[in-house]
């Protein structure tokens, strides 16, 4: 594999059509040029601080801590960012980069709609055209976000192929990119896809762990014992882990969507049920059958409803540096309701997967241990779906 770039152990690489190769090479060159450019970084930091409301708070969840009776729990409040999730971090970085590259049009895939909304927002701000691909199933689950994207000036294209969810939206965005490269940047929303996307997205999301580290040192004078986040493709988790990877005393836990359980077919827990494969531009773990056909995965959370995981996560799993645990729909919904009642914070159903696992493990730890949970997004978008899950029909 001497020519292959962007490897994390055996994972990563660039498994894409020849048509896109020069586009990703051009992107890599531009990124390598701008990532250490002081003017670019100042512009991005200004956007983060002045526009996206960074740094996000590291909040001591005192009631939750006392209620669970174990480790001290902090919440990294990415839900308080402009547009309501961590997605804006990556999008502002990529949109700014695309603009510097002379691109005038952004395309994106979206699952829950958070990445689509963030991309539509950045496009509006920077005066770029925006087209978002979204599985038809998800346009129904997340109708409010479809409206938000359109309000921001983007066109939303419902994808009807395959399972009509996130993986099909990614496939369709890739197809669109092969047909229009000159003026278009594919603003990929997670730490996945072909190199250099997993690295670029990680670097833009790494602001999360950079801030956590600084904030926890200010508040506690030491590093946390555990940092945890939910994982679909894995961008908020990668951002949460990144600056702690070298701090071996900090445990890293990714919470996967188990759907109806990892012993059923209705699951999206890639590390727990998948195996090594090649898809969407990368070698990594995927939910698939014995012939390599990608599995139609399921989760209540549209944002975690993806059959793969970013290559750097696959590598962190291989090396044992991070652990990945499954969390079911039922556990996530319970955590969604628990955090709302206990702390007055309605988390995204995606983030609720991480909250659910913290609820399981925190009581067993001593009171002097510290757990940081990244709340990747806010849960307003999920209220109608959770109500339905509980048998109540409310109109959005």
């Amino acid at each position, binding site marked *: *594999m*001497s*020519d*292959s*770039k962007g490897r994390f152990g055996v994972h990563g*690489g*660039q*498994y*894409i*059509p*020849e*048509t*896109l*190769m*020069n*586009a990703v090479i051009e992107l890599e060159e531009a990124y390598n040029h701008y990532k250490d450019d002081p003017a670019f970084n100042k512009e991005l930091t200004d956007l983060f601080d002045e526009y996206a409301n960074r740094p996000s708070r590291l909040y001591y969840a005192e009631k939750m801590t006392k209620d669970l009776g174990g480790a001290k729990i902090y919440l990294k409040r990415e839900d308080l960012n402009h547009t309501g999730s961590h997605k804006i971090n990556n999008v502002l970085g990529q949109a700014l980069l695309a603009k510097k590259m002379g691109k005038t049009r952004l395309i994106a895939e979206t699952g829950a709609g958070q990445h689509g909304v963030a991309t539509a927002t950045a496009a509006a701000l920077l005066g770029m055209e925006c087209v978002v691909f979204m599985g038809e199933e998800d346009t129904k689950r997340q109708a409010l976000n479809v409206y938000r994207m359109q309000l921001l000036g983007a066109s939303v294209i419902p994808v009807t*192929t*395959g399972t009509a969810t996130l*993986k*099909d939206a990614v*496939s369709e965005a*890739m*197809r669109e990119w*092969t*047909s*229009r*490269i000159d003026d278009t940047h594919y603003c990929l929303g997670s730490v996945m896809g072909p190199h250099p996307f997993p690295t670029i997205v990680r670097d833009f999301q790494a602001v999360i762990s950079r801030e956590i580290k600084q904030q926890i040192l200010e508040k506690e004078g030491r590093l946390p014992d555990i940092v945890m986040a939910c994982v679909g493709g894995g961008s908020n988790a990668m951002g949460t882990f990144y600056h702690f990877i070298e701090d071996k005393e900090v445990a890293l836990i990714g919470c996967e969507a188990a759907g109806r359980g990892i012993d059923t077919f209705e699951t999206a827990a890639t590390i727990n049920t998948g*195996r*090594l*494969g*090649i*898809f*969407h*531009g990368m*070698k990594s773990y*995927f939910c*698939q059958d*014995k*012939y*390599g*056909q*990608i599995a139609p995965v399921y989760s209540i959370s549209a944002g975690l409803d993806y059959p793969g995981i970013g290559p750097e996560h696959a590598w962190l799993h291989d090396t044992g540096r991070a652990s990945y645990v499954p969390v079911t729909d039922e556990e996530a919904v319970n955590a969604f309701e628990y955090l709302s009642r206990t702390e007055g914070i309605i988390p995204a159903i995606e983030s609720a997967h991480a909250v659910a696992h913290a609820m399981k493990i925190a009581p067993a730890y001593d009171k002097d241990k510290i757990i940081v949970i990244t709340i990747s997004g806010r849960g307003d978008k999920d209220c109608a779906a959770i109500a339905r899950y509980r048998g109540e029909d409310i109109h959005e």
Partner: protein
Amino acid sequence: MSKIADAFANGKAFIPFITCGDPDLATTKEIICSMAANGADLIELGIPFSDPTAEGPVIQNANLRALKQGVTTDKIFDMVRELRTDAVHPIRLPMVFMTYANVVFSYDAEKFIRTCREIGIDGLILPDLPFEEKGEFDAICEKYDVDLISLIAPTSENRVAMIAKKARGFIYIVSSLGVTGVRSEIKTDIPSLVKLVRENTSVPCAVGFGISTPAQAAKMAGISDGAIVGSAIIKLVAQYGKDAAGPVGEYVRKMKDAI
């Protein structure tokens, strides 16, 4: 020299594509025999994949129809074996598989490619395996003398020489940006691409993506060594279902005559 060279030995090559198992493998067998009898020089056999990211809607749907029928890689291997060893009319012309990297990788690449050699598959086209990633498959392909086909796209530019120099079997020139599918017009400067290819290799090159009419095929084969047609054939299969072998054969004859 691989068997693929035979396809280009007598003038321009016509290369039809078929998705295996659409609508079922019995029909696929009939279609392959009909293509061979009507002048096809090389046949591309598509092994369906759940998420074919390089395909337009026509071939995407054929992939899904085939998978719904329960087609698997092993069943397709069996079909090819039967075609090659048929007591009355064995298929002798070169055949290649067209599928996605994961289909080969998850089967165990060595086992997949060894089986290709055993059953008489001469080459492999993997549209999601660019030059930079072909190393891990290339070594195995060389070991079993199966040609890993290189693709060149309208955006390849400075990459053409590098790709052409390492190419084996034939070079697949992608005529247009985007995915597979019928196009009314091909705007890429194919002659320049072909010229660059020929400056760097003696391996033949054929043009595919967007070709459906005899006139387009004649034009593309005229400036290269052959024409590849997929979506137009898959449309006939979708239209005629289990009775597609006849109409596909007529179409192949018409296209071959045109080039």
